């Protein structure tokens, strides 16, 4: 059972374009995190969102947590080749368990 579904699975865009990646679930999460992973490395945390409706910005990246805390989105403005990588959402389930569930991943390629 996959708790977190991401879309799209693959995304290839031109430098300078905007994009949005979605992370959806039927379950409620106490918090959601977004990670970026580059080849040969482990995922690196970008942001944690905790409150329903919360919006966080990290330079050209905007993260939003859904009001019901079941979904999240990542929006990138004016994508750069350095944004290329595998983006993963992950969440701690509302039950309070500490194990972190990961989404299916979105592989982004930004073409110069």
């Amino acid at each position, binding site marked *: 059972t996959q708790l977190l579904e*991401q879309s799209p699975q693959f995304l290839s865009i031109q430098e300078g374009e905007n994009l949005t990646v979605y992370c959806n679930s039927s379950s409620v999460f*106490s*918090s959601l*995190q977004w990670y970026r992973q580059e080849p*040969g*490395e*482990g*995922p*690196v*945390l970008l942001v*944690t969102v*905790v409150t329903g409706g919360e919006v966080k910005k990290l330079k050209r990246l905007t993260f939003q947590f859904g009001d019901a805390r079941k979904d999240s989105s990542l929006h990138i403005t004016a994508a750069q080749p350095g944004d290329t990588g*595998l983006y*993963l959402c*992950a969440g*701690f389930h*509302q039950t*309070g*368990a*500490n*194990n*972190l*569930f*990961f*989404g*299916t*991943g979105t*592989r982004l390629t930004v073409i110069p």
Partner: protein
Amino acid sequence: GAGVSQSPSNKVTEKGKDVELRCDPISGHTALYWYRQSLGQGLEFLIYFQGNSAPDKSGLPSDRFSAERTGGSVSTLTIQRTQQEDSAVYLCASSLVRRTGGFSGNTIYFGEGSWLTVV
């Protein structure tokens, strides 16, 4: 180093052999996770250790997989009688566990992974 350390970084083994993968978490981190990642895919949760509590083994795919954590620090993931479908990157991560109400205020740090190829 100060990060999560995994060994070996690469392992090629013959089908049917046993393998052991090691993880050295960040010093002082009480939580330790093992995940499996197939090529280009998301992470599949395997097992979670938290202090002296019983580990959460709910993600282990079969009884060929086991893990232990000795002295609350180093962890070893063992795969017995390896199969070709076990080929993947095995990622270890650690964190401090801070709970405030329902939120686990964790920042999880990952190692670079152990690439396992079963031939």
